């Protein structure tokens, strides 16, 4: 597994960046997935909910398209169901409280040179690494 996917990483990353740039160019929006998803449930404007849903459905459709055209999607989840639920709640809670995730703070915020996003990205990367370190290399 630990063989680096250099071409896939660079091409896939470029597509993600291009998608973020196009969403800003056409819709004037930051491509932050947690914020776009959250707005579906909190926005009181119908047109607003519509584009948010369309973006989310587009993401799922894009992955399905890849599976159809290129190769089956490998999604290997190591966590058990309990850990998965805890992880999901923490990711949802944290991204709402911290106003963003890997896409909004990481890809878009860093490009805007936003100090908030730089701090957030460094923080969640560090905590992610620390969590994996404790899980994998420290026995309790």
């Amino acid at each position, binding site marked *: 597994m630990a063989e680096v996917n250099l071409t896939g*990483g660079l091409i896939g990353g470029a597509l993600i960046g*291009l998608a973020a740039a196009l969403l800003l160019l056409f819709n004037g929006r930051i491509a932050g997935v947690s914020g776009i998803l959250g707005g579906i449930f909190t926005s009181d404007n119908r047109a607003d909910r519509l584009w948010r849903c369309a973006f989310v459905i*587009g993401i799922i459709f894009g992955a399905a398209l890849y599976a159809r055209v290129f190769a089956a999607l490998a999604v290997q989840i190591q*966590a058990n169901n309990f850990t998965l639920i805890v992880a999901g709640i923490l*990711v949802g809670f944290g991204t709402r409280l911290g106003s963003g995730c890997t896409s909004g703070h990481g890809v878009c915020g860093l490009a805007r040179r936003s100090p908030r996003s730089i701090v957030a990205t460094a*923080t969640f990367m560090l905590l992610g690494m620390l969590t994996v370190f404790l899980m994998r290399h420290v026995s309790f």
Partner: protein
Amino acid sequence: MLFVSAFLTGVLFGLGLSISEMINPTRVIGFLDVAGHWDATLIFVMGGALAMTVPLYPLILRRNQPILDRRFSLPTKHEIDRPLIFGAVIFGIGWGLGGFCPGPALAALATGSTRVALFVFAMITGQWMAGRLQ
């Protein structure tokens, strides 16, 4: 029209997450596992994405308005406050536990896996809980 461009950019985004394998939590945990057999793929994904957004964002923001809407909707907060830090800490822990962040988790729904759906449901619940608190 806004929903058409949102759908198409979403498709590109989902393709990018799949091609880069960020849709796979094992890849992501491999990146976060710096003390183990480290997997640097995520660095290249971030690099590839920033290679687009860093030059394109300032060019786009020179415009008076986006193509399909009246104004740009950009974050208005500039202050590095407690919710930002606590939120990033909590998100980071959840990211390390499951290997999923919001984009890849949504894209992975395409596999039809009930376990992915379970994560997404928990994530939306977590967002709702934070919303109640604020």
